[in-house]
C-alpha cells in the first residue's frame, strides 16, 4: 500500500481526532480524502509535525495523532528523546515509513536501507513503539488510541504518491479553525 491508500483506510478513525499532518503530499492527500477542522495541515517546516503534536498533547487533554514521515523524523531526530521523556498518554506519533522523501519525488531515505526508526525511538526512551505493515495500520492505530498510552507507530509501506491538489486554504484559516476544534 502507498500512503494515500493507508490514509483512505484510516480516515474514519482520524475523522474525530485532532490530527497534525506532515508537510507536502501527506497533507494534500489527507485534505483531499477527508478535510476536517480537526486537521492541522503543515504547509512548510519539514520535520516539526511531531514537535507541534507533542506541544499540543501536553497543553490539552484530547488525543493527538501526528501523521509524520520517515524523512521528516530523520531531519528532526532530536524529537525522539523529547517524546521519549515527555510524551503524555494522549500522544500518538504515526510515522508513515515509505523509505523515501515522497513529496519530492520518492528519493530514498536511510530507513529503506539499514536505519530502523522503531529501534531509534526505543533507544530514545519511547516506551510503546509498535511497527506494523501497511495493511495492519487501522487496528494498530485504534489500539493505540484505546490504550491511552503515548505510542510511536511505525507503518512500513510502499513509496508513492496520489495526485492531489495543492492546499490553497490560508494558513491562518487552517490554524484558526483547528484551534476552535481543539477548544470545542
Amino acid at each position, binding site marked *: 500500500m502507498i500512503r494515500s491508500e493507508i490514509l483512505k483506510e484510516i480516515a474514519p478513525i482520524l475523522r474525530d481526532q485532532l490530527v497534525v499532518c506532515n508537510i507536502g503530499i501527506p497533507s494534500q492527500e489527507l485534505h483531499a480524502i477527508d478535510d476536517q477542522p480537526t486537521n492541522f495541515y503543515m504547509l*512548510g517546516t519539514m520535520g516539526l509535525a511531531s*514537535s*507541534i503534536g507533542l506541544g499540543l*498533547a501536553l*497543553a490539552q487533554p484530547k488525543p493527538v495523532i501526528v501523521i509524520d514521515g520517515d524523512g521528516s523524523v530523520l531531519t528532526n531526530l*532530536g*524529537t525522539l528523546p*523529547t517524546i521519549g521523556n515527555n510524551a503524555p498518554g494522549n500522544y500518538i506519533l504515526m510515522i508513515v515509513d515509505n523509505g523515501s522523501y515522497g513529496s519530492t519525488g520518492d528519493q530514498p531515505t536511510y530507513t529503506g536501507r539499514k536505519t530502523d526508526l522503531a529501534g531509534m525511538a526505543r533507544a530514545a526512551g519511547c516506551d510503546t513503539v509498535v511497527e506494523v505493515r501497511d495493511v495492519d495500520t487501522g487496528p494498530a492505530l485504534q489500539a493505540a488510541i484505546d490504550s491511552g498510552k503515548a505510542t510511536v507507530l511505525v507503518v512500513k509501506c510502499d513509496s508513492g504518491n496520489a495526485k492531489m491538489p495543492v492546499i490553497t486554504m490560508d494558513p491562518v484559516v487552517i*490554524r484558526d479553525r483547528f484551534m476552535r476544534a481543539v477548544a470545542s
Partner: protein
Amino acid sequence: MNIDKKIADDLVANDIRFVTTVPCKQLAGVIEEVEARDDIFHIPSNKEDEGMGLCAGAWMGGTRPAIIMQNTALGVTINTLATLIQFYRMPLPMIISYRGELREPVACQVEMAVHTKALLAQLNIPTYHFHWQKDVEEFDNILKYTFMCNKPVAILTDANFWGGYGDQ
C-alpha cells in the same frame, strides 16, 4: 534585583505556562528558575527549531508558550520562524542570550552576534535589547505586546545585562 526571578514572575503573570529551553551559560539562572517553578511546565528541547514546534503546538492547545535560547541558534530557526510562526500567525516570546556583545570573552561568539540584529530585522521580528538590569522592567510589556499582535518577538539579553562573566 534578581533578574532570573523577575523574568519567571513576569512569564507567570502573563499566563505563560509552557517554556522550552536550550541552554546558554548566561541563561543558566533563568533556566533553573523556570525548572523550579510549579506553575511553569519546562520542557528542554534538543534544537531550537524543535522547541518552536513545541511552542506552536502548546499555543494551539490553549497554553501560552515561550522559548529561551542563544542567539547562535537563530540561523537554524529562520525557516521555522517564517513558515510556521509567522505564516500561521502565532505569538512567540523569544528570550535570547545575546552572546558576542560587550564583555564577551569568547571571540567565536562575535561571529553570530554581528548577524543577530540583521537577521531579526530581515524577518521583521520586533526586537528589544536588554543591556542594563533595569531594562528588564520592560519585559512585562513586551510579553503583553507579543500576545496582542500574535508575532514572534525577540528579547536580546547581553552579557552586561546578566552581570558579565566574573573572572572569565
